[in-house]
Structure formats: structure tokens, C-alpha cells
């Protein structure tokens, strides 16, 4: 049995094609990442798998059960967390989880026992009897994840679990996710952050405009991108030509110049030797640098490379280096 099998699934809203023929198969165990910019169709796909939405056409099976044939059976065995589902602000953490437990079908005693177990595990035991509106963003996100754990799900679906979180909370959530996976839970995770996908997922699918545009392991994806980029900002723009000559033969592809900013970029991948060599050569040629940076490829780069258009990222990214920003068009369909 597979955790998820999706065959040519489509979801159309009139003319809008939120999903336009997606195929996917996710084995049991481990983390599977669904990567894409806002409006790519990630949330739509997640909502179909969590039985919140019916597909327009195609077939989707979750834990061997067809989403349209027996959604109730799927709901008993999955958990959903993230932007697609929420917790109640006016209830305490414990009351939220007790309610979810009751709605999973447990009696009061069992629901409370599970609530306390999960609160302990996500480190919210001390805040258990406070209303959620007093919680920080990170605590809410943990409680939201807790709600999806009450039913001991075989498949956990997390929709952008760390969007908007500070680095510390993000790290905590990642640790928790890794713990769950070690215990055998299968996890499907959507994210806008390459870094997150890289850290957690064994397999990735990149979707854009409702279609799968790439899939593979994080390393395969990064190989497609070429890896780390060395960026040089010259003191004297007149020396651009000289620098490009000096850099010849280094990196995985020839250095390029951004016409607007005058920045010179060299994709060096994992080869730190290339960085050292580049700097040595520039020093010898007496080229002065105003600024220098080595940055990870960002999701922007993924999309620029794979689709030819930049990602529309609305949240501040933890990634280093510059970002291309564009106005967000339509978000994911609710």
C-alpha cells in the first residue's frame, strides 16, 4: 500500500485551473515535500487529499482508500495541520485537544488523556490551561500540530507548517517533525522554503500553475540548480570584463553579470575550492571588491531555473542573499 496515490488529478474553478493533471505517488514512511510558490496549487492538492475538497476529475487514494468513495475512513487515519486547519482562540490548549479527541470518537477520559500526552510532547503542558489567544505564533503552530496528532495518524499532512515562524520556532517544529517520522508516521509537507524541504524531505515534487514541473531528491533538485552562488560587487564597474576573464574555467557554468545591478554571479556548487581560487585570482589582478557573498540557491532560483519566472514569496525568507520580489497574484484557492 502507498500513503498517497494521485492519478491525473484536476481541480478547475470555472476557467481557473488550480490543479491541471497532477500525478503523485508517496510510499509509506518518511517525509515527502511538496514545493511551490503561492498559488501553485499546493493547498488545493492538500485539501483534496485531506477530503476537504472534491477533485474535478482524476483519482486520489490515501492509505489505499479513494477520497471520494470513503472520506470518513480517511479522516480517521490522517491528521491535518497548518494553514488549512486551525485551533480555537477562545479555548485553552487542553480544551482544543479534548474537543478534537471527542470528535475523533474517543470518550472524555481517553480524549483528555491523549490531550495531556500530546501537550506534554509538544512542550505546551505549562500553557495547557491558558486560552490560545495568549499563545505566541510558534505555540499556536505547535498546538495546531498537536491537534492533528490526537488521532495518532498514519499520515500527517502539513500545509506550510512554518510559514511566518521565527527561526527558533521553525527549528523546534523541524525537530518535532523528525521525531514523528522516526516513529513511523508518513508526512506530506508543503512549503515555500527550499531550505525546509532540503532539511526534512527525502523526496520532493515541485509544482507550479497546477502542474508538476520537477521531482526528485533534494540533491537532484539542487544539482539541477547548480548549487551555491558566489556574488561579487566590484568597486570599479569598469573592470567587469577583466573579472569575467579571470573567472573563466571556474564554477559549473560561466559567470554572469546582472545588467541592472552590475553584480557578477558565479555558480560554484559545493566546490569551495572554486571560491578560494576566484578570490586568489582577483587579488592577483588587483581587483577591489565592494562586497562579496556566497548564498544558497533560493526558491526564487528554483523557479527561475525551472519555470523562467520568479517565485512569488509573501513571507520573509530565512535564506541569505538578495531576493527578487514580485507582487503576489492570486493566492491558493481556499
Amino acid at each position, binding site marked *: 500500500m502507498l500513503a498517497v496515490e494521485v492519478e491525473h488529478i484536476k481541480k478547475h474553478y470555472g476557467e481557473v485551473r488550480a490543479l491541471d493533471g497532477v500525478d503523485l505517488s508517496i510510499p509509506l514512511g518518511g517525509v515527502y515535500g511538496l514545493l511551490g510558490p503561492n498559488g501553485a496549487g499546493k493547498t488545493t492538492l492538500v485539501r483534496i487529499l485531506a477530503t*476537504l475538497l*472534491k477533485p474535478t476529475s482524476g483519482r486520489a487514494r490515501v492509505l489505499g482508500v479513494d477520497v471520494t468513495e470513503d472520506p470518513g475512513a480517511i479522516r480517521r487515519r490522517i491528521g491535518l495541520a497548518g494553514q488549512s486547519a*486551525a485551533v*480555537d482562540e477562545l479555548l485553552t490548549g487542553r480544551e482544543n485537544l479534548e474537543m478534537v479527541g471527542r*470528535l475523533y470518537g474517543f470518550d472524555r477520559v481517553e480524549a483528555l488523556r491523549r490531550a495531556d500526552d500530546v501537550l506534554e510532547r509538544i512542550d505546551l503542558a505549562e500553557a495547557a490551561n491558558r*486560552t490560545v489567544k495568549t499563545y505566541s505564533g510558534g505555540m499556536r503552530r505547535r498546538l495546531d500540530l498537536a491537534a492533528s496528532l490526537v*488521532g*495518532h495518524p498514519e499520515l500527517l499532512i502539513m500545509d506550510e507548517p512554518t510559514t511566518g515562524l521565527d527561526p527558533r520556532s521553525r527549528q523546534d517544529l523541524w525537530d518535532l517533525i523528525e521525531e514523528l517520522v522516526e516513529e513511523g508516521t508518513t508526512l506530506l509537507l508543503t512549503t515555500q522554503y527550499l531550505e525546509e524541504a532540503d532539511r526534512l524531505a527525502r523526496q520532493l515534487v515541485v509544482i507550479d500553475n497546477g502542474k508538476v514541473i520537477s521531482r526528485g531528491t533534494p540533491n537532484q533538485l539542487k544539482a539541477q540548480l547548480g548549487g551555491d552562488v558566489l556574488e561579487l560587487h566590484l568597486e570599479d564597474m569598469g573592470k567587469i570584463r577583466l573579472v569575467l576573464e579571470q573567472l573563466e574555467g571556474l564554477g559549473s557554468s560561466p559567470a554572469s553579470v546582472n545588467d541592472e545591478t552590475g553584480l557578477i554571479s558565479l555558480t560554484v556548487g559545493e566546490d569551495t575550492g572554486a571560491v578560494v581560487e576566484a578570490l586568489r585570482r582577483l587579488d592577483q589582478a588587483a581587483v577591489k571588491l565592494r562586497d562579496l557573498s556566497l548564498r544558497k540557491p533560493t526558491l526564487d532560483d528554483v523557479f527561475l531555473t525551472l519555470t523562467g519566472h520568479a517565485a512569488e514569496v509573501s513571507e520573509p525568507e530565512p535564506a541569505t542573499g538578495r531576493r527578487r520580489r514580485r507582487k503576489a497574484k492570486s493566492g491558493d484557492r481556499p
Partner: protein
Amino acid sequence: MTAHAAIDPLRTRPEGVAGMVADIITVAKRNIIRVFRTPELLVFSTIQPIMFVLLFNYVFGGAIPIPGVEYINFLIPGIIIQTATFGASNTAIGLTEDLQAGIVDRFRSLPMARSAVLAGRVLADTLRNLWVILLSVGIGYLIGFRFQAGFVSAVLAILIATLFAFAMSWVFAAMGLLTKTPEAAQAAVFVPIFPFTFASSAFVPTETMPGWLQAFAENQPVTAAINAMRYLVLGESEFLNLNSGQVVEALAWSLLIFGVFFYVAVRLYRRSSE
């Protein structure tokens, strides 16, 4: 699945209707806790009936002589049905807030009875409305209101009002599912509320209205509920045209409204997953 089988025996919720009732109670309990933790809502839904009873009694009381009847005894049934209709509109607003906050999606992802999301909300709002009805009666008592037709009629009067509030909550549940955001719901609910509550027998006898308005006022559900309550408060009255048939009429309206809007609301709820 082994894990699945291992946890199943702990799921003690019964199948079918009993399970559905359990889910409705769970959701209603959550909504009632929310009311108690929203002091604004609690305070305003308490102040409103007090204000209405006092204002209408002392503002209109002197101007509207109704032979043989104390105005307060005429007024209270009108105020109660009006307040219950206003109170029921909270169903629309609460539901849209839940939709927007993602709580409804949380419910949808759980193995619970689908109808419990709507029914639990309506049940909680009806209980809150019952509290407001009893409160209005209490305030009325302080300034001279008395049930004239005995204890059984008094209980029936409160039941009629509560049933009407319940039916109206389903109307507003459907409106909430149509409007989708609290802001839109807030504006939309007044469209039915004002004509139905004011062009009714709530504050003045309908005979005083122009013919065309009278025709509407006398044949709409709010008037039917008010007249039924009034009959149960005052007893039979030839002058006010009150008789036991109005109780049947009010019951029929409430059941009809419930039947139609339950169906519409459930359809709209289902459709939002397509």
C-alpha cells in the same frame, strides 16, 4: 492497518444518530464556552433586551392605548420575538468567523458527523437565545409584566419563542454560508431582520398600518410567532384578534422555516467542498 486496528477499540462513540448527537453536543459545548469567553457578546446580548423592554415600554407605552390590556403585557411578546430574531443572526456571524479562521476546515478533516458543525452552532445559539428570552421576561416582571393565562401557557409561550429562535438560526446559518465573511454577514442579516421585525405586530397593532403594509405584516412568520406568544400571555382577545389557532400557525411557520433552511444550509455546506 495494524496501527488503525490498535486504536479503534478506544473509539467509543456510537455509530449513526447517537454518534451524531454526541458530535453536536461537543460542538455546541465549544460554542457555549466561546460565548462565556466573549464578554462583549454576553454583555451586549444582555443589555439589548433590557434596553428594548425599558425604551419601548416608556416611549411607546403612553402613545399606544390598547383597551383592556396593559401595554407592557402587549409589548413583551413582541420584544421577545424581535430579540430572538436579532439573536439568531449571530449564527451567521459565528459561522463565517469559523469559516474564516479555518475552524470549519479543522472539523471537516475530522471523522465526525458533518451535520454537527451546523447543528452544534445552532444549538448553542438557541440556548443563548433562550437565556435572553428568560432575561426579557424577568426585566418585564420588574416593571409590571405578568402572564395572564396561567403557568402552562407561560411555559408554552417560552417554548414557542425558543422554537422560533431555533428556526431563525437555520435561516442565518444559510446566510452565513452564502456570505462567507463576518463583515458581509453582519451587513446582510439586517436585510431580513428589519422589515420582518418592524413590519409586524411587535409594537403596534397591525390595524394601524396602511393597507398594503398590513397585508404583509399580518401574513409573515414574525407576526405569527408574536401573536401566538401574545395569545399565550394574554389569553383569548377579540379586540386583538388573538386565538388558539395562532399557536398552530406559529408552530407551522417555525417548522416550515426550519425544514426549508435546514435543507438549504446543509446543501450550501456540502457544496463548499466541491
